[in-house]
């Protein structure tokens, strides 16, 4: 039983596991209006427009398992809307979770244990009735012992806004770290590349299942560390759709729109009625490119240069031509050594690249490994080309090297953050060593001269006597 009027408890369970989430009241942000265009449940042609009010909050798990949760609360206008939206969100959530099943060890884990390529979302009914998701997980508002449905009307906490419980739906997902992408990277952030491997494979898997996420962009990718490593994870699954057959409406974010979709929309405002599966896959892959480039070149570079106007033809964006992207990347990383990497990153933006983006077969994993190969070719140039650094110094500074690594490893940081910490630690160690050495040589030479003068003076004194 909820002990407090304002407590909201969600029970998630599957075979052998249970999570019990206590939902915290949301902050004071006003609700966000979000519209969905949903194909009607009974089949038929016309899309159903469902208007919702959305608030975000968090929850804590009282049982073992993932501790912190993200909660999205939808309030609909009518029972029919709530019913349609519930089925729609459930279909999205279960389709997207299938993208995680290929991950190593997935069969041994519960669906709420990492690693994930796409964050698992569970839909919970506001009216306290049981919800089953793809047979494996059941969700329910309130703990199982309080089943007095008649009381439910009065049982939603006041902060939900007084809506009827049966118009309310909750979508809960494990809360993972939102990443502050660096604004500008003047050297390619290639240390991120390894953490994209699972996400790339997950996107390919999703497309093989003929679904598309449709809103892949830097804000919708979080980072998660777990027992076996770490990786980037897609969140925000409520724009996802079946790609084949394609839907007749699309949600997404204008700034990150794929070149082909943009052309379709600009040609004819009704153009999006002629979506193809390939365009949806390409939209996801284009979004993935913006995320990888945010990691490598910086978020600001992506939002303002890559997606900004092409200096040679301001009616287009830089992202609409491989040549322009290559140019912009070369200007951003002027060291010629990075040319192979810039070329691999720019290729998907050109006409050949776009054919591959729109193809139904998998793309992301192959492309990512091509980028990693290109990065290795950059390393074939220097610094390895120069004379091999003096190894005896490694012994001289063994203790300082140890300290630098220790310092960088102590933070709970992601590898890119550790790398930055290490750069700073190296700079500080260099200053310290210089000071130590300066003090030593100052005393050696200073005392030496004073001593010599003393000896000379003493000798002069003795001779003078």
């Amino acid at each position, binding site marked *: 039983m909820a002990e407090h009027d304002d407590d909201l408890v969600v029970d998630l369970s599957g075979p052998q596991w249970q999570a019990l989430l206590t939902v915290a009241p949301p902050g004071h942000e006003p609700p966000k209006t979000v519209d969905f265009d949903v194909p009607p449940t009974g089949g038929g042609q016309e899309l159903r427009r469902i208007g919702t009010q959305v608030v975000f909050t968090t929850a804590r798990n009282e049982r073992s398992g993932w501790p912190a949760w993200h909660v999205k609360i939808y309030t609909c206008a009518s029972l029919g809307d709530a019913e349609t939206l519930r089925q729609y969100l459930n279909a999205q959530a279960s389709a997207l979770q299938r993208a995680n099943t290929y991950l190593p060890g997935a069969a041994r884990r519960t669906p709420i244990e990492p690693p994930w390529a796409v964050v698992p979302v569970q839909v919970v009914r506001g009216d306290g009735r049981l919800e089953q998701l793809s047979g494996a997980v059941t969700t329910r508002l309130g703990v199982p012992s309080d089943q007095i449905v008649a009381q439910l009307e009065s049982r939603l906490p006041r902060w939900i806004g007084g809506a009827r419980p049966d118009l309310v739906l909750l979508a809960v997902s494990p809360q993972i770290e939102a990443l502050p992408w660096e604004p500008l990277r003047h050297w390619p952030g290639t240390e991120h590349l390894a953490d994209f491997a699972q996400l790339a494979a997950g996107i390919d898997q999703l497309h093989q299942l003929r679904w598309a996420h449709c809103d892949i962009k830097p804000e919708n990718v979080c980072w998660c560390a777990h027992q076996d490593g770490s990786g980037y994870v897609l969140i925000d699954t409520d724009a996802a759709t079946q790609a084949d057959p394609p839907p007749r409406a699309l949600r997404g974010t204008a700034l990150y729109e794929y070149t082909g979709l943009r052309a379709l929309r600009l040609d004819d405002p009704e153009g999006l009625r002629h979506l193809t599966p390939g365009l949806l896959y390409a939209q996801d892959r284009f979004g993935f490119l913006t995320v990888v480039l945010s990691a490598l070149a910086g978020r600001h570079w992506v939002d303002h240069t890559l997606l900004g106007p092409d200096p040679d033809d301001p009616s287009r964006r830089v992202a609409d031509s491989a040549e322009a992207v290559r140019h912009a990347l070369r200007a951003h990383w002027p060291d010629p050594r990075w040319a192979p990497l810039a070329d691999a990153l720019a290729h998907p933006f050109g006409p050949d690249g776009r054919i591959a983006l729109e193809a139904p077969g998998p793309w992301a994993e192959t492309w990512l490994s091509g980028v990693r190969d290109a990065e290795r070719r950059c390393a074939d140039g220097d610094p390895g080309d120069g004379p091999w650094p003096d190894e005896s110094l*490694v012994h*001289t500074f063994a203790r300082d090297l140890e300290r630098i690594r220790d310092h960088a490893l102590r933070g709970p940081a992601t590898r890119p953050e550790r790398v930055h910490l*290490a750069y700073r630690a*190296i700079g500080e160690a260099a200053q310290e060593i210089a000071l130590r050495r300066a003090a030593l040589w100052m005393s050696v*030479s200073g005392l030496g*001269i*004073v001593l010599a003068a003393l000896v000379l*003076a003493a000798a002069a004194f003795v001779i*003078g006597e």
Partner: protein
Amino acid sequence: MFSSWRRRLRHRVSAGCGDPAARFAPYGHTFGEWLDTGAGSGRPDYAEVESAVAEYLGSAAKVGQRLGARTGVVLGVAGAAVTVLAVWGLS
């Protein structure tokens, strides 16, 4: 006076050794892997990163040595002058 000397040393080290980020970014993800595993793993590319960091520290040590020795000479000469004058005065 000491703090302005410290500042000069800091400045010379930064100018002489360069920004660590600029120096080590070209190693790409190998740098991060070296941080996580160390050079003990027998990977020549990690050993190379480690040597490069040591070399960077070595160049800072050289900057310190040069400024230290020069300051030592100035202080030493001043000290010697005082010593000689003092001995003179005594005799």
